[in-house]
């Protein structure tokens, strides 16, 4: 009861020190990670003569919005962003549709061929794109699926489903068996536990999978460039590529494009990310 005060104080100073160290580490990581982004931003907004001097200034020495002006003046940026958002959203939906039953089967059910299926999914990730792209095109041509954004989203879905099945499987694995068994005894069947027990509990996993699918689709270029030839259906990554022309690569416009095109996915992540955090879902995660 009458605990000496000194150790407690020492403990709290140690705690404070640990907190401080942790905060410092977070700061350092943020600075290191953000620096290239900062550099991209800086180079896109200051006159190019500063970026092409030595030593290059670490803070903007002047503003020049020409790169953004050219980008928005010459190119249908908004249209590209909308198209990419559509394709990425379709990919997220498609991924969830395919991946939830697959992850459930992989994690919670016992069946012959389960590990073989898991392995097969991993093998699909070992896909040498340069070799696969021509067969995919010929397949899509035979279906009449070229210049079709939904079909492109389906392909993006196929790219991320195996990866997402594995990620979601580990989320399913963490659901306490007792909760599921209790529900089964209560009369819920093997299909019923999926929406009523599993899905609320693996929400962080579902969010992670959605983010992965969104980002993968957002950045995909090679297959989009092969399957989408109609300029009116260009996604953001295809649009950016049109900036690079013969004999010229407009560096600063491309950097401006990098800034512009990363805003939407980051906003998407910001909106959705708090669901990954334990604080908001702790109750349900722990059942």
């Amino acid at each position, binding site marked *: 009861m009458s605990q000496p005060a000194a150790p407690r104080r020492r403990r709290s100073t140690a705690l404070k020190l640990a907190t401080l160290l942790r905060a410092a580490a977070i700061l350092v990581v943020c600075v290191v990670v953000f620096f290239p982004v900062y550099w991209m931003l800086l180079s896109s907004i200051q006159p190019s003569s500063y970026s092409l001097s030595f030593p290059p200034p670490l803070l903007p020495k002047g503003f020049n919005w020409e790169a953004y002006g050219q980008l928005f003046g010459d190119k249908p940026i908004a249209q590209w962003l909308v198209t990419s958002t559509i394709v990425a959203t379709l990919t997220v939906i498609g991924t969830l549709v395919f991946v939830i039953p697959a992850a459930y089967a992989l994690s919670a059910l016992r069946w012959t061929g389960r590990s073989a299926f898991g392995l097969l999914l991993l093998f699909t990730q070992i896909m040498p794109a340069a070799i696969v792209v021509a067969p995919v095109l010929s397949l899509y041509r035979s279906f009449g699926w070229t210049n079709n954004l939904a079909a492109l989203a389906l392909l993006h879905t*196929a790219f991320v489903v195996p990866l997402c099945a594995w990620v979601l499987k580990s989320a399913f694995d963490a659901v306490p068996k007792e909760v599921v068994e209790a529900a089964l005894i209560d009369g819920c069947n093997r299909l019923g536990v999926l929406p009523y027990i599993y899905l609320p509990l693996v929400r962080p996993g579902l969010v992670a999978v959605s983010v992965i699918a969104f980002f993968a689709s957002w950045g995909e270029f090679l297959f989009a460039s092969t399957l989408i030839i109609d300029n009116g259906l260009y996604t953001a990554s295809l649009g950016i590529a049109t900036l690079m022309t013969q004999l010229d690569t407009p560096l600063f416009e491309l950097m401006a494009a990098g800034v512009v095109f990363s805003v939407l996915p980051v906003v998407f992540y910001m909106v959705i990310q708090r669901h990954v955090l334990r604080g908001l879902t702790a109750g349900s995660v722990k059942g």
Partner: protein
Amino acid sequence: MQQAAIMVAGVRRPARRSLVDGKAFPYLLILPALALEALLILYPIVRGSLVSLDPGDGTYGFDNYSLMFADPDFWRMLMHTLTYTVSVDVIILIVALAVALLMNWDFPGRGAVRSILTVPWAIPDVPVAITFVMMFDPTFGVFNRLARMLPWIDHNQSWLLDPNLAMAAVILVTVWKGFPFYSLVLLAALQNVPDELYDAARVDGAGVFGQFLHVTLPGIRDTIALLAVLAFIFSTQQFTLIWLITGGGPVDATTTLAPAIYMQAFRFFNFGYAGAFAVIGFLISAVATLAFVVVQQRLAREP
């Protein structure tokens, strides 16, 4: 709940019940994903691999393979691929784990911080590559400005023109661009480690490091193993960043599998030869994946 489940899932109770409880149920669940992958990924992989048996004149055989194994450039390329892949794999997992551990901590402003740490993932490859090329520029680059702050560096480095530094540079960029994905997955795994285990470890007198070693690591072991395999696979396939930053140079120091395949197929128009490269790359990654599964199953059998 039972009624709701029935309403969701089906019309005729007996038929549905036998389906859900029967042996076919798991197969029905995986069927859509399996069909999708078989059609859009596996079939094209097989078709693409067959190209490697065609030397270009329509006669099928293993000419491309014998040519490849006799080609010293091929073996050099494999060594570069191994250096790059293993380095990226190890570094990206360490960085991602460190970041995930930091982010798994409740602190004010964590939402903003976590968003900042996701930005590299969100920027398209092309602007990322161009920004880093500018930063590495021997004459104007900011990395030289920063390096020159170190007392023992008194002249500008030509980062991308030196074979060793260029390899380090592409590894750095790959890690920077790729770690948010691994952090995200690791973070999700960290959330699943039950608090009670930490409490128990604390009661047993384990410090921060002890908790990490005895609670955290075992709890996320499977995820780390999975990510290690994925990092291996993805880095053997890394093309855009390497192609735009070094083009596989200087000399051939950063020519790894994916740029080599691309070059053979689309620059040199040797589709069959590129196919042979791709098949070898596929086999290497497949062996790595099998090793992962074996190790994982052995670990799972341990108490």
